[in-house]
C-alpha cells in the first residue's frame, strides 16, 4: 500500500509533493472542462467514497494494541492499519480545504466593508474600524509568530518576565488578550440580562402550560437556593422528618422535589429530543452520503 508519510526533505517526499500538485491542478482543470450535467455525478462519487471510508472505519474491526512499526499480522489487520492511517490524512485534507474557504470568507468580509468605505455608505466609519482591525491583527499575529519562531530557548525562558517581552509579543497580547478576549467576555456577560428578560416573558401566566412551567421553575429555583432550601428543611424537620427518616413528609423536602423534577421530567424529555435529533441526523447523513438529496434545496 502507498505510504502516507515520507522522511522530511527526502527525494520521495519531493516527488510526492510534485505528483500531488500536478494531480491537483490536473483534476481542477478537468473539473472545469467537465460538462455541467456530469459534475453532480463526480461530486456524488467523491462523496460516496469519502463516506465509505468513515463507514469502513466504523464497521471494520479495529487492530488493538498497535505500536509504532508494527507489521499487520493478517489481511484484516492490514486493512485496519490502512484505515487508521488514512483517517488522519483525510482530516488534514479537510483542514486544508477549510483554510482555503476561510480565505474566501475573509475576502468577502473585506470586499463588503471596503466597498462601504469607498462609497461612504451608511455607518462606513464602523467598516473602516473593522478593516483596520483585520489588517492590524493579521500583521501583528504574523509578526509575533515570526518573532517567537526565531527566538532561542533562553530568550523564550526570559520572556516569562513580561518586561522582557519583545514589542510584537507585547502588542499581540494587548490586542488578543487585552482587547478581543475582554470584548468577548463583555458580550457573554450580556446573556445574564437576556436570561432575565426572556424568563419574564416565558413565565407570564398565559396558559395552562405556562403556569405548569412557572410552578416547576419556581420549585427548581428555590431548591437550588441554599437559604430557601435550608429554611424549608428546618420546617420539614420540625414536622417529624428528622425523627423518622422514612416519614412521608421527607418527600416534601425542596431538594427531593427538585431532584425528582430534574431526574424524572427534565432528563427524559431532553433524552427524547436527543433520540429524535440523532435519528434525524442519521437519515440526513444517509441521504447526503448516497446523494439522494441532490438538488434538494434548490430544485
Amino acid at each position, binding site marked *: 500500500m502507498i505510504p502516507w508519510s515520507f522522511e522530511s526533505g527526502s527525494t520521495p517526499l519531493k516527488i510526492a509533493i510534485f505528483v500531488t500538485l500536478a494531480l491537483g491542478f490536473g483534476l481542477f482543470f478537468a473539473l472545469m472542462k467537465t460538462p455541467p450535467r456530469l459534475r453532480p455525478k463526480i461530486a456524488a462519487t467523491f462523496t460516496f467514497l469519502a463516506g465509505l471510508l468513515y463507514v469502513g472505519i466504523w464497521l471494520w474491526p479495529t487492530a488493538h494494541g498497535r505500536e509504532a*512499526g508494527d507489521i499487520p499480522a493478517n489481511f484484516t489487520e492490514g486493512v485496519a492499519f490502512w484505515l487508521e492511517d488514512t483517517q488522519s490524512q483525510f482530516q488534514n485534507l479537510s483542514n486544508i480545504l477549510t483554510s482555503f474557504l476561510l480565505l474566501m470568507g475573509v475576502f468577502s468580509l473585506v470586499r463588503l466593508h471596503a466597498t462601504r468605505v469607498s462609497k461612504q455608505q451608511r455607518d462606513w466609519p464602523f467598516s473602516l474600524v473593522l478593516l483596520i482591525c483585520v489588517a492590524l491583527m493579521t500583521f501583528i499575529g504574523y509578526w509575533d509568530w515570526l518573532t517567537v519562531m526565531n527566538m532561542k530557548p533562553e530568550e523564550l525562558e526570559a520572556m516569562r518576565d513580561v518586561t522582557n517581552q519583545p514589542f510584537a509579543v507585547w502588542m499581540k497580547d494587548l490586542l488578543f488578550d487585552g482587547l478581543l478576549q475582554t470584548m468577548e467576555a463583555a458580550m457573554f456577560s450580556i446573556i445574564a440580562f437576556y436570561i432575565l428578560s426572556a424568563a419574564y*416573558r416565558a413565565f407570564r401566566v398565559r396558559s395552562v402550560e405556562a403556569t405548569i412551567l412557572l410552578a416547576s421553575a419556581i420549585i427548581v429555583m428555590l431548591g437550588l437556593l441554599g437559604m430557601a432550601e435550608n429554611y424549608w428543611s428546618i420546617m420539614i424537620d420540625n414536622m417529624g422528618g428528622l425523627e423518622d427518616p422514612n416519614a412521608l413528609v421527607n418527600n416534601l423536602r425542596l431538594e427531593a422535589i427538585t431532584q425528582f423534577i430534574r431526574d424524572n421530567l427534565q432528563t427524559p424529555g431532553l433524552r427524547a*429530543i436527543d433520540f429524535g435529533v440523532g435519528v*434525524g441526523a*442519521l437519515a*440526513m447523513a444517509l441521504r447526503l452520503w448516497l446523494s439522494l438529496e441532490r438538488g*434538494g434545496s434548490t430544485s
Partner: protein
Amino acid sequence: MQYFDTGKYQVLFVLVMVAFILINIFRAQNKDIFIRRIAGLNAIEDAVGRATEMGKPVLMVPGLGALNAISVQALNIFAHITRTAARFASPIRLCCGEAAVFAVAQEVIRDVYQSEGVPERMDGDSVRFVSDRQFAFAAGVSGIMLREQTAATFFMGEFFAESLIFAETANSIGAIQVASSTENTQTPFFIAACDYVLIGEEFYAASAYLTRKPVLVGSLVGQDWGKMLIASLILFGIGLESSQRKGWVEQMESDPAAKTSMMRLFSPEPPDPATKPVRQKHPEEGEAQ
C-alpha cells in the same frame, strides 16, 4: 456463557435504522404519506410576507457549526425561505460563522434565485461571513439586526451561548423569530424567547414538510419507524431492568466490577490484552526501538 457479542448490537441497531429509512424512501415513491402540521414552518410564509409589507430584510443564521448534516439541513430550509423571499422580492441576509458553510450558502442562494428566474434580484452581499469567533459573530449579527431592523429572523442549526443574544435582540426590534437548535441546552432559551420553535426532529422534518419530495418524506417515515423501535426497546429495557434489579443491586454491592447483560449491552468491554496478535516489526523501526 455468552451467546452474542453484545458489542455488535450498536452496529446491528444502526443497520436496522438505515434499512428502515431506505425501505421507506422506496415506499414513498408510489404512496402519498401524511405529515402532521408543524406550526413553525407554516409561519415562514407569514413572516416573509410581513417583511415584504414592511420593506425590511429577512435574516437567516445557520449557527456556528461546521459544514455537516445540521448546517446542510439549515441551508435546505433557508433555500425554501429564500425562494419565498425571491418571489416577494424581499431582501435577505444570511450570516455565516463558518467559512465552509458560507461558501456552500453562497452557491445555494445563487441557485435559488436562478431557479426562480430572477437572478437580478440577488444581492451579492446578502450572504455574509461575519466571524468564526463565537461572540464576535454574536455581536456582528446583532449589529446587522439592529441597523437593518430585520422584520423576520430565522435561527436554525447549531447554536450555543449566543442563541439568547440573537433571540432577545430580534425580540427588541419586534421581528418575528422562528428558531431551531439541535443543541438541547439551547432549545429552552429559544422556546422562552422566540415566537416559533422547531424542537428536536422537527428540524430534520422541515425540508420534507416544505418540499414534499418522496425521498425526504420517505426518510421522515423511516425516522419515525426508528423512533418506534427505540421506544419499544426502552419499554423492553424497563422490563428487563426491573426483573433483574434486585440481583443487580446485590451483585454490585458484593462486586462493583460485576456487569449485568444490560450494562454490557451499552458499555462493551475493551478487548482482552491477552488476545493481541503477535506482530513483526518493520526492520528499521524495530532497531530504532
